[in-house]
């Protein structure tokens, strides 16, 4: 299974290795960081890594930018890169921006309501609320939350 991992294979797929490193970095930040804004930055890195994957796959060796000359006289010898992944990623970038702005808006509201954007602080406040709920509503019914 590992015999195909030659030096050429590793160097030849450099962009894919970088994609994976970037993706894992992003995912790690989302999981490991306590600050919500930092988590969001991690999420952004994670999403951006996928743009690299798509753009890598659209690249054709020796290919140029996929723009036809204005007179539409296309030289059949010219190789063009595949434009479709670029277009797809344009859509994904828009989605990413929408997600980021919505998340930032939510973080602002969380800051207003809780007074903190640190995950540990938020969890503490929420478990205090849950305990209080439990005390008022749970014990009255002989149950627990």
């Amino acid at each position, binding site marked *: 299974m590992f015999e195909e991992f030659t030096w050429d294979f590793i160097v030849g797929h450099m962009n894919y290795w970088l994609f994976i490193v970037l993706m894992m970095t992003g*995912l790690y930040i*989302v999981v490991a960081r306590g600050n*919500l804004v930092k*988590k969001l930055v991690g*999420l952004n890195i*994670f*999403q951006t890594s*996928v743009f690299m*994957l*798509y753009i890598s*796959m659209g690249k054709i060796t020796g290919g140029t930018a*996929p*723009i*036809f000359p204005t007179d*539409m006289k*296309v030289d059949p010898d010219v190789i063009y890169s595949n*434009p*479709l*992944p670029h*277009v*797809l990623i344009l*859509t*994904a970038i828009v*989605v990413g921006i*929408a*997600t980021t702005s*919505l*998340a930032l808006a*939510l*973080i602002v*509201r*969380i800051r207003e*309501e*809780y007074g903190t954007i640190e995950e540990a602080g*938020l969890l503490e406040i*929420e478990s205090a*609320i849950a305990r209080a*709920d*439990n005390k*008022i*509503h*749970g014990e*009255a*019914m002989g*149950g*627990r*939350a």
Partner: protein
Amino acid sequence: MATDVSHGAATAADHAHVALTLVDHLPVLVILVPFMAAPLIVLIGSRGLAWPIAFAASIVSTVVSFLLLMQVIDGSVISYHLGGWAPPLGIEYRVDAANAFVLLLVSGISTVVLPYARTSVAAEVPKRQHTLFYTAYLLCVTGLMGVTVTGDAFNVFVFLEISSLSTYVLIAQGSFRDKRALTASLDYLMMGTIGATFFVIGIGLLYMATGTLNMADIADRIAEQGSNRTVRSAFAFIVVGVGLKVAIYPLHLWLPNAYTFAPSAVTSFLAATATKVAIYVLMRFIFTVFQPGFPFAVNTLFYIIVPFALLAMFAASFIAIFQSDLKRMLAYSSIAQIGYILLGIGFLSETGLTASIVHLFNHGVTKAALFMGVGAFVLRAGGSFYDRLPGLGRSMPLTSAAMVIAGLSLIGVPGTAGFISKWVLVQAALELNWWPIALMIVASSLLAVVYVWRMVEILYLMAPADDKFHVQEAPMSMLIPLWIMALGCIYFGINTDLTMSAATTAAQGLLGEPAVMAGH
């Protein structure tokens, strides 16, 4: 875009196929109407007009979905070429029995929830948010329907994100009752985005392997080239990505908080539709794109999906028993019910898949009714914690009775919709001779008896709270939608023509049986 010019000739030649009458445009109208109505609400900006526009758009979508289902219930397939660009280059909307059925579920639930939402949202969300609330609601409907109707893999992602982004907004609207809605929404946003990004990676890998984004075309090319590492990793990424949206058991963490803290109308709509649409996407990819013969998919289903489905059925039901909040209890019950649907998919048989599709519909109706009842309790009794509810069977008889009917359907008592789907599911298990699983389905239903009985006991058998706070019956605008859903639970449990025939045709279509066979 300059690149499209080279295909100009092909499109012109295809103009003969381009639909000209309104009926032929139904597949796009079903999403175009809510999609255009959403910005219209913002542009008009009138609070009084927001709800009527949303309701009208939702009714049009329901009628269109119904017409579509009637066209394809015999097993035929409608292929609509968006903008006249022929697939596989253009985006194709492909309607068959499976997605027409899901379209009807989404638009139908949306139409019934809206009249309910008018009162419920007025009570739970401040007035200045109402126009934007209905805009987000319609965008969510659009996204869910778009995911369902499209035959283009990347289009699924775009619509999935439209629905998800509006869902995050809708859940956050619960923050005016409980600030925890904000963190619930952000949690869902983080997990949902990771899921959607996994899904995009999967589609990217599929594009690398096949060079196309049209689902039918991808399926053909995978069948030609067989299984390879790129296709296998694409499958894994797609299953995990969509699995986050489905809330497959270990990926369910966003669901309980999101359902508990969202406004009641939003919870009833989402519980009935959002996870169901994600399950449809999962089915579409497993059965249409990857084909059941794809051995990696079969192993994934058997060794990963089925055990997790069984775990969900028991663990989530067990957690539900110990809740002290009715709304949170129902959220956990949803996770358990998703387990049944996944189990049906895991059987990989026509009966199993039929059971999944019927349960998808029946559980949608049942859960919508239950969460609507919760909303009525929140409005009149001021909360959904159990200690708020004792004796409400007397002061809110109509709401409580509807809750009991829907609760029976949740258990799967004969005569209700829930019974039909569980019956078919047990049949599917016995067909494969997996009788221990059949027993487990029955055993986990007994757990449902426990948590539903707890609700009945509190509503009817316990004395009202000491403070004798005066509780009125819920207003008509909430009772009528609630009872439509509750009667739906009974109707679809007695008359199974529509649900069973649509689900059987859909299952046959998904498993790739010839269309001639369908309709029996």
